[in-house]
C-alpha cells in the first residue's frame, strides 16, 4: 500500500508541501535537488512517479530523465516554464508537462496529475461514471418530461372523446417509459462498481413483483440471504417477472425457489442455485440461446432489453444464468454461482 501511493518531488520544499497537503493520503518524498532525488531513487523504495521542477542547476529535468528508468513516469512542473521547454521535456521522455504558474492552484493540479498517474484506471472509471450519471440525468429529464406531457394530453383528450387510437397511444407511451427505465438501468449496470452485501432474497422478490398484475407469485417459504447488490438484484427480478407476465399473461403463476443438490440435501449451504419459473408458453429450444441478446423480443410490447439487462447483472455479479423448460411447460431460469448465506 505504501509503495503504491508514494511519489517523489524534486523542487522547492514549499511547493512540495503544498502538493503533499493537496494529495491527502498519498505520501510525497521531497528532495530539493536533482542530485538528491536521483540518490533517493537509487537507494530507496521506488516511487510510482516523479515530479520535478526545472530550474538548473539545482533542478534539471533533463538530467533526471537521462537517469531514471524509461518506464518511470516523470511529470515536469517548472516554476519558469516555456513552450520550448515543454516540447524538449516531452521529447526527452517526460510523461506530462504541467506549468503550475499558469494555473489557479498549481499544487492541486500537480496532485491531481500524480493521482491520475498512480491510479489511471480509477481516474478514468470515475470520469466515465460521472459522464454516465450526467447522461442518465439528461436522458431521464429530456425523455420523461415529454412522455409526461403526452400522457397528460391523452388523459385530458379521453375526457372529451372516445377513440381506440388514444388507448393505443397510451400503450405506446407506457412502452417508451419502460424502455427508458431499462436504458437507465443498463447505464447503471455498466457504469458503476458493484457493492456486494448480504441481501434478504424474500424482501427483494416482494419488492420486485409488479403491483399492477393479477398474475400469481409463489415463493419458497424459506429463502436464504445472498451476496448481491440490492438495487441491481431487484432489477434482475423485476425484469424476469415482467418478462413472465408479458409473455404468459395475467393467469400465470411464477415460482421462485432454491435449487437443491441432486442428493436431496436441504442444508442452505449446500443449495446450488435459484430458479424462477412459470407456467406460461415457455421459450422454444432454438430461441433459448438468443433471449439474452440485446434487441431480442418476440413480444409485441417487449423492448428487447429486459433479459439482456438480466444477463448483464448476472455477469456483473459473477453468476451464471441458463434458460430451460419448467416442469409446468413454461420458461425456467436458473441462476448459479451465487453465494448463499
Amino acid at each position, binding site marked *: 500500500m505504501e509503495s503504491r501511493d508514494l511519489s517523489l518531488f524534486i523542487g522547492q520544499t514549499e511547493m512540495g508541501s503544498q502538493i503533499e497537503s493537496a494529495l491527502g493520503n498519498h505520501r510525497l518524498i521531497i528532495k530539493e535537488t536533482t542530485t538528491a532525488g536521483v540518490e533517493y531513487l537509487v537507494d530507496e523504495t521506488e516511487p510510482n512517479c516523479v515530479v520535478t521542477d526545472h530550474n538548473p542547476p539545482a533542478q534539471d529535468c533533463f538530467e533526471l530523465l537521462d537517469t531514471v528508468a524509461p518506464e518511470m513516469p516523470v511529470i515536469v512542473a517548472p516554476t519558469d516554464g516555456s513552450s520550448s521547454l515543454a516540447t524538449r521535456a516531452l521529447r526527452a521522455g517526460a510523461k506530462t508537462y504541467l506549468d503550475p504558474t499558469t494555473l489557479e492552484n498549481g499544487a492541486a493540479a500537480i496532485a491531481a496529475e500524480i493521482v491520475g498517474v498512480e491510479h489511471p484506471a480509477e481516474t478514468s472509471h470515475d470520469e466515465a461514471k460521472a459522464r454516465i450519471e450526467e447522461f442518465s440525468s439528461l436522458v*431521464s429529464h429530456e425523455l*420523461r418530461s415529454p412522455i409526461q406531457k403526452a*400522457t*397528460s394530453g391523452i388523459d385530458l383528450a379521453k375526457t372529451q372523446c372516445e377513440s381506440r387510437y388514444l388507448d393505443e397511444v397510451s400503450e405506446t407511451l407506457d412502452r417508451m417509459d419502460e424502455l427508458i427505465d431499462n436504458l437507465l438501468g443498463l447505464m447503471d449496470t455498466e457504469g458503476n462498481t458493484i457493492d456486494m452485501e448480504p441481501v434478504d432474497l424474500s424482501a427483494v422478490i416482494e419488492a420486485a413483483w409488479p403491483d*399492477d398484475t393479477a398474475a400469481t407469485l409463489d415463493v419458497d417459504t424459506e429463502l436464504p440471504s445472498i451476496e448481491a447488490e440490492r438495487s441491481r438484484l431487484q432489477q434482475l427480478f423485476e425484469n424476469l417477472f415482467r418478462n413472465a407476465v408479458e409473455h404468459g399473461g395475467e393467469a400465470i403463476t411464477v415460482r421462485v425457489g432454491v435449487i437443491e443438490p441432486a442428493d436431496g440435501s436441504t442444508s442452505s449451504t449446500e443449495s446450488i442455485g435459484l430458479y424462477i419459473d412459470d407456467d406460461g408458453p415457455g421459450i422454444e429450444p432454438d430461441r433459448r440461446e438468443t433471449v439474452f441478446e440485446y434487441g431480442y423480443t418476440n413480444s409485441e410490447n417487449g423492448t428487447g432489453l429486459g433479459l439482456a439487462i438480466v444477463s448483464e447483472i448476472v455477469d456483473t455479479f459473477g453468476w451464471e444464468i441458463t434458460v430451460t423448460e419448467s416442469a409446468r411447460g413454461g420458461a425456467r431460469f436458473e441462476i448459479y454461482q451465487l453465494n448463499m448465506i
Partner: protein
Amino acid sequence: MIDTSEKTVLIVDDEEMVAESYELYLQDDYETIVELSGGAALMELDQREVDLVLVDRRMPGMSGDVVIDHIDQWEMDFQVIMVTAVDPDIDIIDMPCDGYLTKPVSEDELLDAVNRAFQIDYYEDLIAEYNQLSEKYEVLTSQFSSRKLANKDRFADLEARMEEMETEIAETAEGFSDSKLSDAFRRLH
C-alpha cells in the same frame, strides 16, 4: 377518518397540460388549485390555506427546490410532494418534502401518493393528540388515587378517548397501502 373533500391540493407545474391532468386525476376527491410557476405558487400560499402542495422540481425561474425551501422556512404546516422527471438522488434526504414521484405519473400513482401523504398527516395528528392525553393521564394518575379517579366522569371520558384513539391509530397504520409502511408504523406503535 379523513374527510378528503375538504382538503385542498395546490398543483404547481410549468406545463399547463400536465398540471391540468393532475387536476383531472384529483378533482373527484380533492379541491384543487393550479399554478404554473413557483413564484405564483408562493403568492397563492400566502393568500389561502392549502393542505398539500404537489410541485414540479424543474421549472423555469423558481424551481421546485426553491419553492419547498421557502415553505420550509415559513414553517407552513402542510404536506409537500415533489414530482420530477429525474431519478431521485441521495440529496432527497435533506429535502423538506413528504413524498417524491418520478414522471410520468399515472392517475393511480398520483392518487396513491396524495392519499398516503394525507394518511400520514392524519396519523401524526392522532399521535400528537394521543401524547397530549397520555401526559394528562400520567399527571392525574400520579396525583390522585385510582379510587378517587374512578368516581370522576371526566377521567372515565379520558380513558375511553385514549382507548378509542389507540384503536384508530392501529387502524390508520394498517390502512397504508404500502405494507412496508404499515410494518414500520406498527413497530413504532
